[in-house]
């Protein structure tokens, strides 16, 4: 199975491991990730205002490039996934935005939201299948108690993201089971880590992280996994009393598949 792949700015710099282990694991699973040529930074925040058109264009360019290759667009970073998925929804369902974005871009054929945006975790669930993933595991992570930190961007708003049940998701727990470890469900796993405010108001970010770490520790997690470089940074930099190690889910995947 071949996918167009959108890595995003951070996966080329501070989150190289998220990208590298994803590529190695995909190869082991028979999935080909074809990085889009000339992709541009998605902007990391979905511009919510209807009249914000220019800020949505880099996402539209990536979506249109995947359409041209007749491939689904694979994402890895939670923020890129969020932006691409929501802009795609606008291009499909919001005529005001669709018309204006196409007026700017003047593509050979207007883009109207045709591309499927697929997160790497969704690819594991829906294309590979967690049962097949389990069979491909050579080094099951037995005995490890892992908390899935979903955060906000993959899940909300669920009407558009359609990633999983936004209040009681299971996809990352199912992933953890497939790689042979024990998932630890904790209440704050789908709360906001406060990453966006980490630069402007450190105390507020610390408060958010404290709540999440306390909740994870209290429920018996010994490590956390995430798909978001900003969660990764914030959970690490702004943990005060409790501090669990945080890893990208792809690193554990590569470990289990014996390709780390």
């Amino acid at each position: 199975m071949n996918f167009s792949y959108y890595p995003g700015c951070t996966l080329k710099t501070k989150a190289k491991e998220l990208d590298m282990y994803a590529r190695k694991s995909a190869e082991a699973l028979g999935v080909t990730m074809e990085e889009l040529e000339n992709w541009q930074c998605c902007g990391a925040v979905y511009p919510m205002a209807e009249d914000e058109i220019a800020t949505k264009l880099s996402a539209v360019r990536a979506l249109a490039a995947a359409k041209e290759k007749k491939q689904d667009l694979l994402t890895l970073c939670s923020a890129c996934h969020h932006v691409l998925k929501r802009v795609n929804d606008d291009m499909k369902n919001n005529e005001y935005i669709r018309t204006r974005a196409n007026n700017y871009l003047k593509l050979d054929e207007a883009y109207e939201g045709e591309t499927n945006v697929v997160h790497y975790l969704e690819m594991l669930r829906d294309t590979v299948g967690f049962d097949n993933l389990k069979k491909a595991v050579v080094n099951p992570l037995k005995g490890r108690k892992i908390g899935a930190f979903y955060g906000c961007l993959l899940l909300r708003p669920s009407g558009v993201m359609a990633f999983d049940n936004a209040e009681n998701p299971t996809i990352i727990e199912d992933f953890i089971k497939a790689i042979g470890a024990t998932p630890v469900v904790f209440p704050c796993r789908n709360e906001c880590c406060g990453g966006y405010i980490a630069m402007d108001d450190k105390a507020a970010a610390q408060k958010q992280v404290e709540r999440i770490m306390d909740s994870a520790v209290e429920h018996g997690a010994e490590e956390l996994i995430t798909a978001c470089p900003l969660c990764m940074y914030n959970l690490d930099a702004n943990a005060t009393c409790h501090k669990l190690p945080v890893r990208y889910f792809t690193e554990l995947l590569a470990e289990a598949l014996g390709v780390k």
Partner: protein
Amino acid sequence: MHDTNKDMAEQVIRMSGVNPRKCMKCGKCSGTCPAYDEMEYHPHQFVAMVEKGRIEELMASKSLYKCLSCFACVERCPRNVEPAKLVEAVRLLVIRQQGKNYLKAEDLPALLDEKIPQQALVSAMRKYSK
């Protein structure tokens, strides 16, 4: 003065696509908001104040920069009002004015540390600067 506010309220409604009159004032958005303690005006108040045309007060409030864009208020509102879109629209009214950026590119170096991901810088510029 009142008319400016009214025009701005209409603009906020247009930009956000939110209809504040759908709100049934249950307070669930504010109850779930992780930035509640840091905010002077809470998500349900944004909805009520936009409805009443109290835009200048919102524009002057630091609450605009405390929203975490977590979409909890959007997800959990039983009336699908989407309060976060109002916070963003009012913030845009402020930062689209000449010289009113909340964060300037020159401010960034002082805020950096070794590990800060590009994503944090890009998103801060997108949220706080035009």
